């Protein structure tokens, strides 16, 4: 209960941050050259000023900045994100359609990076300064330096074009009408390369942190006590060291949630995935500012939600945190 109260307190503390982001973004987008109506008129192939004027009135763009900001924030409380003139649908609908692909991609990339990063970090720490450690640390450095979009393209060349093992893009095979398990397997096959591409840099970061954190914890007194009790090395690591060494990794998930969402913009456009990231890219290109603002809002919510979960997880792993309160 205490854990939950603490996490909820942190959640409430992030509300002012959210308002700050929204106001800042709204004002920033006012500086953008051209508005939705301009983009719409360009798409229609031009039109006279009277129509533009009428459209502006329809979308409420003829009011002052302060009035529109107030209206926008009021509507947000009811989760109304406005209307996307480009897609001809409410922004909330457009975003909800794209959200599942991004969340699925993030969860799978995070699981991949976290689990492999942990295993490699532990392996490196247990063979510190010997060849497995050197190999793993070098790999980590190289993964860290690899631009994700380039890795994605090269993976497409190797696995999709030459070996033809995996699809080069898309979220599912639209030529076949699959249901149930077959459809899930199909989506999983499409997500293998994007997951590796997005997860690679985080794998590098996690394995580095895990290695350092393992070395730190292994030098503490309670580990010596555990060894002195006559426990095997595997048991010492599994039961005593791992739980403590994982704390910095958990912190990192929260800190990097935003970076990962940003990374999905690039990865989704490499693999033509219908996700939030590609929607962000498309709305920049099409000057669909309403949608862009909506994406910023939803992304901030996502990052805050992830941090909320991380707080709970952290307090679970380290009882001292909830006891301190």
């Amino acid at each position: 209960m205490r854990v939950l109260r603490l996490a909820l307190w942190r959640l409430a503390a992030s509300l002012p941050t959210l308002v700050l982001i929204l106001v800042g973004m709204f004002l920033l987008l006012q500086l953008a050259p051209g508005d939705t109506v301009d983009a719409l008129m360009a798409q229609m192939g031009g039109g006279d000023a009277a129509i533009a004027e009428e459209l502006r009135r329809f979308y409420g763009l003829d009011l002052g900045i302060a009035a529109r900001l107030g209206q926008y924030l009021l509507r947000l409380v009811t989760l109304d994100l406005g209307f996307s003139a480009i897609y001809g649908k409410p922004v909330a609908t457009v975003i909800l359609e794209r959200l599942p692909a991004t969340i699925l991609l993030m969860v799978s990339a995070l699981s991949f990076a976290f689990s492999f990063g942990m295993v490699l970090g532990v392996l490196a720490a247990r063979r510190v300064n010997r060849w497995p450690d050197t190999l793993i640390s070098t790999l980590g450095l190289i993964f860290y330096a690899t631009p994700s979009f380039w890795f994605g393209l090269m993976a497409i060349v190797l696995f999709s074009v030459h070996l033809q093992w995996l699809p080069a893009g898309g979220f599912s095979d639209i030529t076949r009408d699959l249901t149930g398990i077959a459809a899930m397997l199909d989506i999983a096959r499409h997500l293998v390369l994007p997951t590796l591409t997005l997860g690679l840099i985080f794998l590098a970061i996690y394995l580095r942190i895990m290695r350092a954190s393992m070395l730190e914890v292994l030098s503490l007194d309670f580990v010596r006590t555990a060894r002195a009790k006559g426990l095997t090395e595997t048991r010492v690591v599994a039961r005593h060291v791992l739980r403590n060494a994982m704390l910095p990794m958990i912190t990192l998930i929260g800190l990097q949630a935003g970076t990962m969402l940003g990374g999905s913009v690039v990865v989704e456009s490499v693999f033509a995935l219908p996700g939030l990231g590609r929607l962000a890219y498309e709305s920049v290109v099409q000057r669909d500012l309403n949608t862009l603002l909506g994406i910023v809002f939803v992304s901030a919510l996502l990052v805050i939600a992830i941090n909320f979960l991380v707080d709970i997880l952290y307090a679970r792993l380290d009882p001292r945190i909830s006891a301190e309160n």
Partner: protein
Amino acid sequence: MRTLRAYLRSPAAMIGSAILLAVVFMALTAGWFFPADPLGLAGRPLQWPGANPRFPLGTDPSGRDIAAQIFHGARISLLIGFVATSIAVLIGIAMGAVAGFYGGFVDTALMRVTEAFQTLPNFLLLLVLVAVFGSTIETVTIAIGLVSWPPVARLTRAEFLTLRTREFVQACRVQGLGDMHLILREVLPNALPPVIVYASVVMAVSILLESALAFLQLSDPNVPSWGNLIGLGRNVLRAEWYVSAIPGVAILLTILGVSLVGQGLNDALNPRLASGR
């Protein structure tokens, strides 16, 4: 001196410095080896590397020399790396120093702003900035600096929080020295080493951010950026994959060089925390 010797002893630092020097060499000699406009037509498009001795790295889909674009691209990447990092470090130090030194309300307010920047995915903010202010090389560089400062601010603040109560600072305060003197001359020099090490991370991220932006064709199309070339090569990826592959290797090596130098600096400046214990 001791720091320099420690730096020179670290193999990571040596390899990193060698790679970075090679990139700097490419940037400096680009105009000498490839005097012609790297974005101008050079020959028949899509010649494989080695197929024509005039183009050791081949030509891209528009018939431009890839080797020339790699050499001139080194300038762009280094320039963006240095300028964007300087902007991020300056903003970060200013925010962190003021927040950490004064504490209280100022600290809370500045940290809220930092938090807002960290909650927002930085690439998304970068997209918005480019959408609003356009994508010339100057605006892209400034925008990258503007989205990269929050970790620097947090780091500087943490250092200031521990340093401001130390005796030597209090001694200066008793002597009646002003706040500006205390911040700039007494606390900041002691807070700098970790910030300098972290600057290498900021530089690596800046170069990656620019190349990702250029890959999406949202950066300046009129400069020979490595990311631009990867984006162009995407259209011919199935057969002529070398167009994308070559600039990617250039980015990878540059980032590797920057990270290794950062690691070497870290080992030299914080010997207690040396990475290879």
